[in-house]
């Protein structure tokens, strides 16, 4: 593997990491701030992708699809909050896991009833359809650069909202000591509802952004959800900064690991077993890294509550 290829793989890893961050950011907010395990975050990402794809098909424009899908995802998240999650805040984690897992099953079948079982597509917007030549014969799609930019912008916006605004201050206070904030006259339930709706909108945004490069199909959020949990656990639950660093780390480890592992294994064994062992090891690598980090920092890289 030469240096150019390694750099290209590094860029690919960063870009996948940013996509992971878009999904994990909403999850870490809800999990960390409200101490609420929301397994349904992955299906909210899926619903976002479906809304984006169908609205884009309806309006004939990616941008209109994106613009309309965001409020739709927000409303959808609020409806879910009203119907299901609201009744679970005071329950233990097991009830939350069971109920939100039920939401996964329900929505995965639900999108199939509404949109059909066949995968859907969302076209890449005309403006971003080109590519930048990276190395001989390989284009880096402009759209992927747009995902990078969107992820970085989201990170900056979240940092600003949580650290520099009054609402963000209340969110942080509510996470630390909810009864005290209530006693000071803040409607904590309403605050949580807003955080939840915002988290759902972030998941939906990630879904719409991913739709032009990934297949829009029932269950598309399930794989990503597992990686998103890895990200927030590594980063420290509730920490947006931790989620950002961890997402980039996971993206890099995942992508570069897949590229390097089979070659690395070839130093020790023959080609055909190196390929299979390498592939198996590469898919475990993220979890090995997580285990190693947790062994030294049990609360993650940037614990939200010191």
């Amino acid at each position, binding site marked *: 593997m030469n240096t150019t290829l390694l750099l290209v793989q590094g860029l690919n*890893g960063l870009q996948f990491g940013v996509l992971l961050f878009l999904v994990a950011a909403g999850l870490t907010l809800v999990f960390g701030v409200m101490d609420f395990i929301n397994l349904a975050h992955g299906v909210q990402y899926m619903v976002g992708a479906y809304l984006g794809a169908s609205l884009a098909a309806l309006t004939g424009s990616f941008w209109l699809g994106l613009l309309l899908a965001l409020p739709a995802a927000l409303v959808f998240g609020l409806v879910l909050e009203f119907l299901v999650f609201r009744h679970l805040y005071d329950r233990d984690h097991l009830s939350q896991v069971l109920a939100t897992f039920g939401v996964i099953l329900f929505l995965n079948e639900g999108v199939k009833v509404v949109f*059909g079982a066949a995968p859907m*597509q969302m*076209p890449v917007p005309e403006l971003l359809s080109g590519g930048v030549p990276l190395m001989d*014969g390989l284009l880096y799609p402009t*759209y992927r650069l747009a995902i990078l930019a969107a992820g970085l912008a989201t990170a900056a916006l979240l940092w600003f909202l949580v650290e520099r605004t009054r609402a963000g201050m209340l969110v942080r206070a509510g996470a630390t000591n909810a009864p005290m904030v209530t006693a000071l006259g803040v409607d904590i339930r309403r605050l949580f509802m807003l955080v939840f709706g915002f988290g759902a909108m972030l998941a939906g945004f990630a879904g719409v952004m991913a739709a032009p*490069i990934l297949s829009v199909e029932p269950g598309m959020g399930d794989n990503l959800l597992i990686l998103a949990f890895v990200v927030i656990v590594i980063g420290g639950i509730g920490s947006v900064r931790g989620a950002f660093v961890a997402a980039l780390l996971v993206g890099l480890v995942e992508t570069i690991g*897949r590229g390097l592992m089979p070659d690395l294994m070839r130093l020790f064994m023959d080609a055909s077993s190196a*390929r299979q062992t390498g*592939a198996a090891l590469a898919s475990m690598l993220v979890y090995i890294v997580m285990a190693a980090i947790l062994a030294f920092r049990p609360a993650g890289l940037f614990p939200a509550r010191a």
Partner: protein
Amino acid sequence: MAFQESGHKTGATRRGLLLASGAGVLAAPALHAQAAPIKVGVVAVQTGPQAALGTQLRDGWTMGLRHLNNQLGGRAVETIVIDDELRPDVAVTKVRAALERDRVDFVVGVVFSNILQAIMRPVTESGTFLISSNAGPSTFAGRGCNPFFFNTSYNNDQVHSVMGQAAQDLGYRRVFLMTPNYQAGRDAMAGFKSRFQGEVLDEVYVPLTQLDFSAELARIASLRPDAIFTFMPGGLGVNLVRQYRQAGLANIPFLSTFTVDEATLPAQGEAALGFYSGANWAPNMDNAQNTRFVRDFEAAFNYVPATYAAQSYDTAMLLDSAVRKVGGNLTDKNALRAAIAAADFTSVRGGFRFGANQYPVQDFWLCQVVRRPDGKFQTQTVRRVLEANVDPWAAQCRMPARI
């Protein structure tokens, strides 16, 4: 559906007794019981990410019955759709219920090999004919062949070897292989290499849950192969095809199996244009039976049929011919088996016959994705790669002459 159980022997005699006791009102149902409908269990996955394939398979069967006026060999048919949920344990439970409670006369369908493997024994040991209209594992083509089992699709290995032969014929010398890291993926590579003589630059296995292929695409670009061969079913294929096109690699020929077909093309669209696949059938095949099938299927279901639907349609036609041959009498299993094996029907593939292991002996084609004048995408035959091909396992099958 429980009331229809009485359609068989026990119910008929019970009704006969009631009749004898003077309950004249029951005369009509008793007559009806004589011509009880043939019951067919159609096993097709309807839930989960692969449901689109099961839907294709079910709709192909439905289309066949529509063209047959919902009759097989002149007898009315009752179809029971069984959703296997792509879980072997669920499939066995539901198929057992269909065998024991609903008393189905045939079990047909099955998209995935692991489901077929699970239901094989329960069905064949009950003396019921099982006709797979898609899954074609090598286990039942060779030593494990069974007189109660027929296959109307292909043996899995054949389809992959078609692409190996096609790569050979097209003169590609350096090929890059990539499949998911599970049994079917390894079989695909082995099948391709069984006929490809050139150099395999690299074999890459990716996890079944892979979303982003950019690491592999960069590797392909750095190796500059003459062509790539891949097997990426379902959503994996949608992701790969679109990312392959977006990365500007489309000038490297894309050879594939079960990656670009009518089930995934609506989501791949333009990105798959010109990509190759290997198959035993394509919607453009020029014969009267196929033209009618494709036209009416699209009118009825509003999407382009894939091989799953075509093979399922053929299965309906096959059973129609077999039931007609035995005069509607399904009790003589040997006669029924001979009637199925005769395959005396018009296939949408043109010719169709069974080999000694009761798998088809058929032609395989190199197909390519095209855009039709109406804007929809479909695969289209380019040329015949293998003629009257017998699967590589058939020689190992010792098929008993009588049941």
